[in-house]
Every structure is written in structure tokens, then in C-alpha cells.
């Protein structure tokens, strides 16, 4: 597949996955690669953390934070409730409103994303989705509210968000995982709930921190006594080969259990990704996209 075709699949891409799998990194890499290809890119984060903005600091990508209280205030203002909006925002009533109708905090955020998606100011909007177990409830909020709220502006909002979710030309979800047992189990579970309950299009799965490659040769006689007793070359080679074999087995299992294309991003010799690592990861992403069926 051509990179351009990949990035133009849908204008809104929500990146989702459990905590610790590198969701923010993947969001940054997608945004970076698309911007490099000449697209006008907006990256959105939802928690008010600076990590995404730091990663994308020296790129043309615009970074925006959308939090529920702000989105609710904007929403109320847009509906002629400016005075109340101020009061709600300052007195923490958002908790109350969100409790009266769970998902309302999510739907105002999704509503805002939908609004951005309808504008023509960006070619691609990549969202660093909510962390941990919240991703599914976030995506499900529109459907849930259809049951509890039977009329009014919130219901209209939910209907419009669902319409966007169900249109693969407008929105897709990209799931992120690591090549390890538990993250892969959780990814498979998430993929099925997202498809069944939300009806949103799933893009390729992105697997982070993949270390494949030819097995390291293990020639005997390089044990703990080698190099004046300082290193154990043999144990190092065996360890690497074990980890690689385990990763390969997990990736094979993922292919068998989930009919989605896989994009593998390599493990870099760094602990945590910084802005300077993005070009290398974008290169890897482009190579992997080229291998996808068109």
C-alpha cells in the first residue's frame, strides 16, 4: 500500500490500547510520518499530559489537548448556555452531570473530535486515546447514551458520533500492543468488543517494541569464563534467541486469532522514545505500510 493511501483511509484515527503498550509513541509516529508525507496533521491528547507535545515539538504537527470539562463548557456555550457553563466548570458539577448520564463526559470529547473531523483544516487527526480500560467505555459512550438520554442536544450529539464511527471513510481505530502474552490477550479481547459493540472500523494492529531478526549463532565455548571471566556471550545469545522466539510465537498467535494486518515497529536501543527517535520509527512504519495489501 502507498503511504498516502494509508494515511487517507479515514480523517480521524483513534489510537487505543492498554496502559504501557506505547500508545502515545504510536500516535506520535503516525502523526510524524503523515506530516513528513506532506499532510496537514493534528495530534490530539485527552489527559492534559505534555508527553505528546514534547515528542512532536520539532514537527509541523499541530498538537491539541481536549479534556472533558473544557469540552463540556464549550459544548454548553455553543448551545446558548454560557452562563451555566461557567458555573458548571467552576463548581465541579461536571461530576454530577457525568454521573446523571455516564458517558456524557466522553461524548462531549467525541463530539469535539467529530467537529474537527468535519472541518477541512486537517487531512489527518490522530488521537492518543484514553488509557487502560477506559478506551472501550470511551468508544461505547455514544451507544450507551442512546439508551439513557431519549432527547435533547446530547442525544443528537451521540447520534452524530455514532454515524461517524460507522463510516469507515471518516473514522478508524488503530489498536496498539506489545509482542507479549498478556498484552496480546487483551488486544484480542478489545478488538472483538470494539468491532461488535461500537461498529467502528479497525485499522491494522500496531505492535510496538518488536525485536525480530535472524537467530544469534550460539557457538559453544563462550560461557562465563570467556573474555577473562567478564562476560557470558553464550547466555546473552541464548537469552536474545529465547525472547525473539517468544515474540514470534505471540505474533503468530495474534495472526491466527485476529484477522487484522500487523504493523511491527522495532525495539530501539533506548529506554522510552524521545523526539529524536521518531524519524527511525517513521521509516520503519513506512516500510511496513508498503508491505500491506492495497
Amino acid at each position, binding site marked *: 500500500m502507498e503511504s498516502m493511501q494509508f494515511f487517507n483511509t479515514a480523517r480521524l484515527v483513534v489510537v487505543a490500547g*492498554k*496502559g*504501557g*503498550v506505547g500508545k502515545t509513541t504510536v500516535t506520535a509516529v503516525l502523526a510524524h510520518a503523515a506530516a513528513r508525507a506532506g499532510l496537514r496533521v493534528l495530534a490530539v491528547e485527552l489527559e492534559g499530559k505534555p*508527553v505528546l507535545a514534547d515528542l512532536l515539538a520539532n514537527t509541523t504537527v499541530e498538537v491539541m489537548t481536549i479534556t472533558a470539562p473544557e469540552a463540556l463548557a464549550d459544548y454548553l456555550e455553543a448551545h446558548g*448556555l454560557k452562563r*451555566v457553563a461557567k458555573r458548571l466548570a467552576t*463548581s*465541579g*458539577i461536571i*461530576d*454530577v*452531570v*457525568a*454521573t*446523571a*448520564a*455516564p*458517558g456524557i463526559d466522553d461524548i462531549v470529547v467525541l463530539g469535539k473530535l467529530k467537529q474537527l473531523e468535519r472541518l477541512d483544516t486537517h487531512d489527518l487527526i490522530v488521537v492518543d486515546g484514553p*488509557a*487502560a*480500560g477506559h478506551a472501550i*467505555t470511551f468508544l461505547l459512550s455514544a451507544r450507551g447514551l442512546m439508551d*439513557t*438520554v*431519549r432527547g*435533547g*442536544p*446530547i442525544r443528537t450529539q451521540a447520534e452524530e458520533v455514532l454515524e461517524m464511527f460507522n463510516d469507515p471513510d471518516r473514522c478508524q481505530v488503530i489498536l496498539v500492543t506489545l509482542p507479549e*502474552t*498478556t*498484552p496480546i*490477550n487483551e488486544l484480542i479481547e478489545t478488538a472483538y468488543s470494539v468491532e461488535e459493540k461500537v461498529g467502528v472500523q479497525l485499522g491494522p494492529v500496531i505492535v510496538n517494541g518488536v525485536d525480530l531478526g535472524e537467530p*544469534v*549463532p*550460539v*557457538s559453544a565455548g*563462550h560461557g562465563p569464563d570467556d*573474555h577473562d571471566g*567478564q*562476560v*557470558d*556471550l*553464550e*547466555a*546473552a*545469545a*541464548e*537469552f*536474545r534467541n*529465547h*525472547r525473539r522466539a*517468544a515474540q514470534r510465537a*505471540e505474533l503468530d498467535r495474534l495472526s491466527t486469532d485476529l484477522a487484522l494486518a500487523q504493523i511491527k515497529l522495532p*525495539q530501539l*536501543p*533506548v*529506554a*522510552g522514545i*524521545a523526539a529524536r527517535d521518531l524519524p527511525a520509527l517513521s521509516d520503519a512504519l513506512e516500510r511496513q505500510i508498503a508491505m500491506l495489501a492495497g
Partner: protein
Amino acid sequence: MSTLDEIVDTAEIIVSCGSGGVGKTTSAAAIALHAASIGKRVVVVTIDPARRLADAFGLVDGLTNDPTRVTVAVAPASDRDRDRDSAGTGELWAMMLDPAMTFDGLVRQYAASPERAERILANAFYRNIAGALSGTQEYMAAEKLYQLHRDERFDIVVVDTPPTRHALDFLDAPATLTRFINHRLFRLMMLPARGGMKVLNIAAQPVLRTIGKVVGGDVLADAIAFFQAFEGMEAGFRDRADAVSELLHSPVTRYVLVASARHDTVVEARYFAARLVESQLVVAAVVINRLQPRFGDITPAEALAAAEGVLATDPQLAAMWRNLAELRALADAEEAVIAPLLADADDDAVHRVPLLDSDVHDLDGLREIARHLFAP
């Protein structure tokens, strides 16, 4: 600060905290398994609805809101032979928190009458509070800890916190819920009830009318009905919340910080440590999971030079040196990342767990982790 050996010896509650994906559940399970192997009666509580704890313990039916006994042998055979006296009494139990069910139990306990309790439990607004209000999960975790701590069956409660930035919210969760219930909006909802006004009139108040416009009238009516039914229960809830809060701040409760060698998880771990200090609590020990093993003492540059040196004569050996150089580069990068965390902690309170050559998903894996956490 202490070693985990000291903590398991003296603590009655051990809280495992850290960000998502750092191995909190695994650490909690390994600590519990070890405590049982030295003769303690342990219950480990997970808040993560994923099956990983149940799977690791081989509990095919999964876990519920009540403790299930893990029937497998908790100690390896050699330990049982060596320390027969104490090991024989060890028990391992596990459970998964169900916040809504725990909340229902509290409502039944504090409601003025069974009828009043049923009215609350059936209310749609209450179901939302019990199921989805942010902070409820943390509060119920604290409540469950309190119940298990008083349960005669257990010597130690090990708890795994939710995988969010708000994981430590349970420290002030009791106060948060009280604040929620005492919110002036709710007082507004309840006031007219005392005056005998009808729900319809309450809903006509300007603020409520606005909220009603946004969320719909029936949703609002449910909320008002809830607060009317809840009236009179606040005092009971508040006293209980105070008792829970006191337990969380008492010296029998020890906090173990879990991190992995990645920049973001170290930042989060230090954030958790700061939150604990804010609450006048201390980090008792630090666990750093999944560290690259080192295979000896050499720099990546030296290993690469060694690879160059033998490339012409022995390409296989050169590949082995290159592999070592790559692993060592990763290990060094990790060391730089965890440095700030190490600087904050006493040396003997830091427990390093290496990345194993296969993933941990059963009792043998947990025993392997425990071997790195506790003295032999």
C-alpha cells in the same frame, strides 16, 4: 524504607502502586505467593478486571468479589522441607474487586430500613454512581481493604491498585465521595424534599432545569429520587470513610512502588511517590521490573570493538559480540532512565527484577519473580 522481606514480616496491608503495564499485578501476586510460602495467610486483591491474576493462579473459573482459596501448593517443595513449621500454615487466597457489589453491601448496611436500601439499589442514578462515577472504584477498593483487614481469616492483604494515574485517589477517595454527596447541588435537590415539595417543582429550579435540558428530564428525576432516598445515611458513610482513611494512613499499611525501566513509567512512579508524601505516607520499597540482564561487565563500545576484532576470522563469534553490545546498550539506557528513581530511594529498598526469557503467566513464573524480590 525497608526490604520486601521486612515488609512481608511486619505489614498487615501491602499496596502495590504504579502506572499501567509495569507489572503491578504480577508483583502483587509474587509478594502474596512468597508470604504464603513463609506461613502467612494471605489474600491478594486485584482491581484489574483482566483475567491475568486468575490465570497466573490457575483458577479456571476466574475470580469473584469474595476471596477464593488458591489450592495449589504455595511453596516450592524445597522450602516446605526446610521450613516445615511455618510453611504448613500458609494460605493463599485471591479475589477481584467488584465495586458495584461492594457499594451495594455498604448501602444495605447503612440504610435506615431494608425498604429504603432496595429503593436506593433500584435507582438508576445510584447504579451510575456504583458503576461509573470516577472515584467509586478507588473508594470501594479502600472499603474492601478495610473489610479484609478485619477478616480473621487473613494475616496480610496485598492489593493491586487500578492502572490509572488516579490509582492513589483511594487515599482520599472517602473524602471525595463525602464531598460528592455533600455537593451543594445535591443539597439543593434534597432541601425541597424536606419541605414536602414535589419532584416536579424541584426540577424547576434554574440550575436543575438547565441540567435537565442537557441530559433530559427522566435522568434528573432519577437523581432527585436518589438523594431523597439517601437522606440520613451520610453520617454512617462518613464515619466509615474516616475509619477506612485511618487504616490507609496507619503504619500497618505499607506502599510498594512498582516501575519498569521506561522514562514514562519512572515519571509516573515519582509522581506516585510525591502523592504519597503529600498524604503523609512513605514509599516502603521500590520494585523495578523487566530490567535487561547484563551478562557480565563490559561497555557496548568494548563489545563492538571485540566484534570488529574477530569479524574476519570468526563471523559467528562476531555476531555474538554484536548481540551482547546491543543488549548492553539497552541495559545502559535503562540504567540512565531509572537513575532518578534510585536517587530517591534507599539502596536496600530497591528490588530489581530482570526481564525473564519467557513471559510470566503461571505459578512457576511468579516463583521466579519472587526469587528476585526476596532473600533466598
